[in-house]
């Protein structure tokens, strides 16, 4: 379908009373198709109502144009009828007279009888027959809004504009009206643009959701397509698999906007001290047991000890927040899943390579695959059983949760499934869900299983919602879990800070590995500012010992490993090479023809070695081939051959990944 409404590179500038200017909107570009329902969502003051007013013609853009069917909009007109937030009914006219005023004013050519008929039809349409002769003052809020909608629709507008139409209504009325509006729009093929700040309302009503960033200079931050089939019912929409991902996408966006606002408010310049280029660091982490080294470095003063006096730990609820923070440059360093530096470097984030390096592997192990208790009850105990079960229930969707495409969980889960002959893309759906939400989703039944770091597997088992189907013991004992990641340009600008940071965290890793500290660490991690969970769910025992009664459904466990004499914290080129093959295998990133160069750039072994030497730690290291549970041996010298030998994989591409030459930022 062709473009019906086109918003073309709009800017809106308001002149302030004091003489200054406020740029409300900048470079807004939006095309709306005929019959489409589009929602505008964003925080208060993001200019969504201004945008709506410009489509209505009540306000004109400072730059750019808005067109309706190719005609430039210069003034308001009844073909773009607006339903205002506060109804805007004339209190001195009855319901019928309010609608009639609009009809009479707009359809002057039509005979009186016909106009009467239109008015009556629309009174019936919104079910206000018993109230037709009452003035608006005698109606409830919901009824008033129905009159406003009837008035708008009676004009047969080409475009219906709704400005927070249900904002002032109670939840029950709102729900009913939303369904009515949906039905009316569907029956009459109405094209509509709605301003809202209600996330659920946007998903329910819209075909597309336009998310606006915060002002000043608001722009479109993202557009979501709502693929839920119509006609929609409120209760059924909630069960659609896209619903929660759309919803969480919007909530993430809105939260991110709030954060950006705070970050903008906080002016940050690098504070150099103690011979370090920058001591005020913002380090991102995700609440997991694996964040222990960061928490400990902060709480036990290892950061301060190495000169980093002003470290702030930034708690992100999802890995996506870390990615945005690194991409946006508003966090200095972050705890990352071991595949993330590679994924970012290869352009996994919006197809734009962000060279990211790692100089420290902070944890190993600590992950497990949990399946819903349902499967256990049906006799599914292991991978083979699961495969059989999937074959038996081909008609059902099976959804697995992972935390990020680049995380070890995703890679391991896919590897595990594929090793069992299950195609992770064709036989099941793999969804990205924040770690802390996994247990809730499993409980709600929206996913059937997940692969995630602790404490969530333990918690699912403990609460009797799921069972651990496989742990690191069975997949890859000692695989890299979380690494420290920084941008390459950051590492180049602050080399000494980078070393100090690695030293502080390495020392914290060592502290975490001592069994006598386990209890203290558990207490610290359970606190609100870290994992914020019950302390029982955080287990930090020597990985070789068994933690609790491991009768079914619990099993022997590979606990987090933070440090050992065998230099497990050293960034491993072999492991990164394996990760490259896995990212390419599932089509997340292309396989880089220049993989040797890329791996060399990502693994900052030199920084690690310097840090370890300065701490007086033994950094002896012997290169060993990787061996996973299915017996396949990975040869780091021929990753492409290994990749080709795997039976289940996507059509991957091999491409030269061109990275900018590392530039030393002027300090």
């Amino acid at each position, binding site marked *: 379908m062709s473009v019906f409404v086109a918003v073309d590179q709009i800017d809106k500038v308001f002149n302030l009373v004091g003489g200054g200017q406020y740029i409300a909107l900048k470079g807004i570009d939006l095309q709306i198709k005929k019959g489409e329902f589009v929602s505008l969502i964003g925080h208060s003051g993001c200019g969504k109502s201004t945008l709506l007013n410009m489509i209505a013609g009540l306000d004109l853009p400072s730059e750019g144009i808005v067109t309706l069917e190719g005609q430039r909009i210069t003034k308001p007109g009844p073909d773009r009828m*607006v339903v205002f937030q506060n109804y*805007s009914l004339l*209190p001195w006219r009855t319901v019928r007279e309010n609608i009639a005023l609009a009809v009479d004013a707009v359809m002057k050519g039509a005979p009186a009888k016909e106009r009467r008929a239109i008015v009556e039809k629309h009174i019936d349409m919104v079910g206000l027959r018993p109230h037709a002769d009452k003035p608006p003052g005698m109606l409830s809020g919901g009824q008033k809004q129905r009159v406003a909608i009837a008035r708008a629709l009676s004009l047969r507008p080409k475009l219906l504009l709704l400005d927070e139409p249900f904002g002032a209504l109670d939840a029950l009325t709102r729900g009913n009206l939303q369904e009515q509006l949906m039905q009316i729009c569907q029956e009459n093929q109405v094209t509509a643009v709605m301003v809202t700040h209600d996330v659920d309302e946007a998903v329910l009503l819209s075909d597309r959701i336009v998310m606006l960033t915060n002002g000043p200079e608001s722009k479109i931050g993202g557009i979501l397509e709502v693929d839920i089939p119509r006609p929609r019912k409120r209760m059924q929409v909630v069960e659609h698999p896209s619903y929660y991902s759309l919803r969480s996408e919007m909530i993430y966006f809105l939260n991110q906007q709030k954060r950006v606002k705070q970050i903008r408010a906080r002016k940050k310049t690098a504070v150099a001290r103690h011979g370090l280029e920058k001591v005020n660091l913002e380090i991102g982490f995700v609440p997991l047991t694996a964040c222990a080294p960061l928490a400990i470095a902060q709480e036990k003063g290892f950061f301060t000890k190495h000169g980093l006096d002003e470290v702030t730990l930034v708690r992100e609820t999802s890995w996506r927040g870390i990615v945005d923070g690194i991409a946006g440059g508003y966090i200095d360093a972050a705890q990352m899943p071991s595949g993330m530096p590679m994924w970012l470097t290869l352009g996994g984030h919006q197809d734009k390579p962000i060279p990211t390096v790692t100089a420290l592997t902070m944890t190993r192990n600590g992950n497990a695959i949990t399946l819903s208790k349902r499967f256990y009850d049906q006799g599914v105990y292991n991978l083979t059983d699961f495969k059989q079960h999937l074959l038996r229930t081909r008609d059902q969707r099976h959804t697995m949760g992972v935390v990020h495409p680049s995380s070890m969980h995703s890679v391991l889960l896919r590897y595990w499934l594929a090793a069992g002959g299950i195609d992770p893309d064709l036989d099941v759906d793999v969804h990205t869900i924040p770690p802390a939400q996994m247990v809730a989703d499993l409980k709600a039944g929206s996913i059937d299983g997940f692969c995630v770091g602790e404490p969530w597997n333990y918690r699912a088992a403990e609460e009797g919602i799921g069972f651990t189907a496989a742990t690191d013991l069975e997949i890859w004992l000692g695989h890299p879990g979380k690494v420290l990641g920084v941008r390459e340009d950051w590492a180049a600008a602050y080399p000494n800070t980078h070393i100090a940071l690695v030293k502080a965290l390495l020392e914290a890793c060592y502290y975490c590995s001592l069994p006598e500290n386990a209890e203290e660490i558990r207490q610290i991690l359970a606190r609100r500012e870290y994992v914020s969970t019950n302390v029982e769910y955080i287990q930090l025992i020597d990985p070789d010992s068994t933690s609790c009664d491991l009768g079914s459904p619990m099993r022997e466990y590979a606990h987090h490993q933070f440090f050992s004499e065998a230099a497990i914290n050293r960034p491993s080129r072999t492991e990164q090479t394996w990760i490259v093959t896995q990212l390419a295998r599932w089509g997340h990133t292309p396989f880089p023809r220049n993989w040797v160069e890329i791996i060399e750039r990502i693994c900052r072994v030199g920084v690690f070695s310097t840090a370890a030497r300065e701490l007086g730690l033994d950094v002896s290291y012997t290169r060993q081939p990787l061996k996973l549970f299915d017996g396949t041996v990975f040869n780091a010298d021929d990753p492409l051959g290994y990749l080709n030998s795997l039976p289940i994989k996507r059509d991957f591409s091999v491409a030269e990944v061109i990275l900018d030459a590392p530039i030393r930022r002027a300090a």
Partner: protein
Amino acid sequence: MTTFSPRRRAGADNSFLAGLQKKLPDFAPPIIAIAIFLAIWQLFSLTPGATLPGPIQVVQDTWILIFWPFYDRGGIDKGLFWQIFASLQRVAISYTLAAIFGIGLGILIGTSKLMSKALDPLFQLLRTVPPLAWVPISLAALRQNEPAALFVIFITAIWPILINTAVGVKEIPSDYNNVAKVLQLTKKEYFFNILIPAALPYIFTGLRIAIGLAWLAIIAAEIVMSGIVGIGFFIWEAYQNNNVSEVILALIYIGIVGLLLDKLMAWIQTLILPAEQK
């Protein structure tokens, strides 16, 4: 049913009595207050050297005027009804004119920013001039008692109407204006369907204040302009003839009429305005 009917009748009687009883707390305090006031007044008038008559004296002196309000002996010697009626007539004429001009100018100022800027200072200045100050100038300009009296009432009553109308028009909620813009209402449609109804509460406030002022002004105008029938001049003449009791009686009548006029406007307002706008 039969057992019910007597009981219901009894109930009706009771409800009437109960109604009275219910209203008693409303009526009793003002009645008692008036009684006390009259008593104090009477006491003061009994004190030696009192210049004003007491209430009993007033009634004794003016019982002809009280009981025969409709007499007409020609000239300006007429009953109080006719005096008040003549004054009311003047008020009616001038007030109507004031309303027409006031609302008209008010809308002009309210809709046009230029007019508002140009005329507002002038109006703010004229508005503060007291009614009595207008008397000499109107007499000088019009040279006749009757039109001068009418003018004074007019010039006193117009300001609240004008200013309130202007405010009402300026304060039309932008929602209503947006509706008008989206519907592309013509000027005429806008005027009758949006502007007037939306400004009506303000206009009525102005009209209600104006009626009080007009009644105020008539007394002032008539006192100064001799030889006309009207309650104002009646007072003046009674004073000249040293009939203080008549002055007091006329005063009470003026108060009552003013009160009734105000109540009348309030009642009209309730008839015209929908509940939501009050």
